[in-house]
């Protein structure tokens, strides 16, 4: 299992803040994105290839090639706008 978090616009548009996902067959962030896109229209749109999506694994910025292991904390969010 991994924990997956969604922030800001993603959390609002998907209506999900946090969930547990089975790691079965998911080697990296790219695999996880593939699963998420298959969940329906809002998911497919937000995580489309041409969308800017930021991702963190265990609170460090990551990318689609970052590998996953049980217990990881994964977070998806739109480009940041602090400062």
């Amino acid at each position, binding site marked *: 299992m991994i924990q997956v978090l969604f922030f800001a616009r993603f959390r609002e548009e998907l209506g999900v803040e946090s969930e547990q996902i089975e790691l079965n067959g998911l080697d990296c962030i790219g695999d996880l994105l593939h699963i998420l896109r298959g969940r329906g229209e809002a998911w497919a749109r937000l995580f489309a290839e041409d969308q800017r999506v930021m991702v963190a694994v265990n*609170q460090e910025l990551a990318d689609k090639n970052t590998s996953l292991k049980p217990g990881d904390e994964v*977070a998806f969010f739109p*480009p940041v*706008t602090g*400062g």
Partner: protein
Amino acid sequence: MNSVSIQAEPFDPNRELDLLRGNDSAIGAVVTFIGLMRDINQGDRVERLYLEHYPGMTERALQKIVDEACSRWEIQHCRVVHRVGALLPKDPIVLVAVASQHRKEAFQACEFVIDYLKTKAPFWKKETTAEGERWVDARESDDAATLAWEKSET
């Protein structure tokens, strides 16, 4: 002393300078950046702002940026304070203060920290205009500033 604070409360620039300097008499230069809430964004009047963040990761991301600044330049102290939650026009949002022996290093490190914070630290702004609420879009000019630092060596 390097330190990072995320807080809902306003900060006091004088107090932050005192914290930064401590009792160090070798400091010759302090450069401070303060980012403030503007009452206009993309042509619309903004009534208020809400700052969301990713607790835990935000502190780590800021600390990492500060560490990288310290490895790139000879600086003595760096302090970052960022507010979260509800903000009004003219409110200070963020403070980055850098102390060093000589000024050039302090200017460069301070600009580096705020440039990186803008594209790497997990904060998101939601603003309220007369038409309602909207999430603020990231700026291409901020990506360009980060990219310029990544290409340059010191």
